[in-house]
């Protein structure tokens, strides 16, 4: 429970400091926003890291192949990175760059999902015969 409170207070503190710096027309405001989101993502990742062993055991116990689980975890990681960087670019007013990053993320996920698609088609074909 404390971690959630810590994250919430950090976020509020960062926005207050951002308003302060914006009021002074300083060019360092975007850097402060970047630092804030880096720290928030760090705390989230540390939270996930503590529970990562339990999550991995949960995955191992399921009958899914470990290959697909690795791909799923990689996709989740890619989604994290894409969301982090594209929202930062959008904060600084660069919508076009943000959409390029998101497009790259989508392409990466589609490429990761191609083997599953072919496996699905194989399964459907076997159903037919």
């Amino acid at each position, binding site marked *: 429970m404390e971690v959630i409170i810590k994250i919430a207070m950090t976020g509020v503190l960062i926005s207050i400091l951002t308003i302060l710096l914006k009021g002074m027309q*300083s060019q*360092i405001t975007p850097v402060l926003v970047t630092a804030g989101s880096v720290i928030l993502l*760090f705390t989230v990742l540390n939270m996930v890291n503590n529970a990562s062993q339990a999550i991995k055991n949960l995955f191992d116990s399921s009958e899914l192949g470990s290959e697909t689980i690795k791909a799923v975890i990689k996709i989740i990681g890619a989604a994290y990175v894409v969301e982090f960087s594209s929202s930062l670019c959008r904060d600084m007013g660069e919508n076009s760059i943000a959409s390029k990053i998101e497009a790259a993320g989508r392409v990466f996920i589609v490429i990761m999902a191609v083997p599953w698609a072919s496996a699905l088609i194989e399964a459907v074909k076997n159903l037919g015969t």
Partner: protein
Amino acid sequence: MGIDLIFKIAGIGIVVAVLNPILIKSGRDEQATLVTVAGLILTMIIISGEIKDLFTLLKSFFG
């Protein structure tokens, strides 16, 4: 790791933002821009270290 980084960067931002008009008013315009650029570069160096740590953590965790 957490809040002190934010205070460091906000401090640099405030110092630069205060120094700028003072230098401009006292006629040293070049030094004002130099101070701004120096502040920006310093904060970017700090931030790039943090982003590197973040992405290595992400890579190590998400494989």
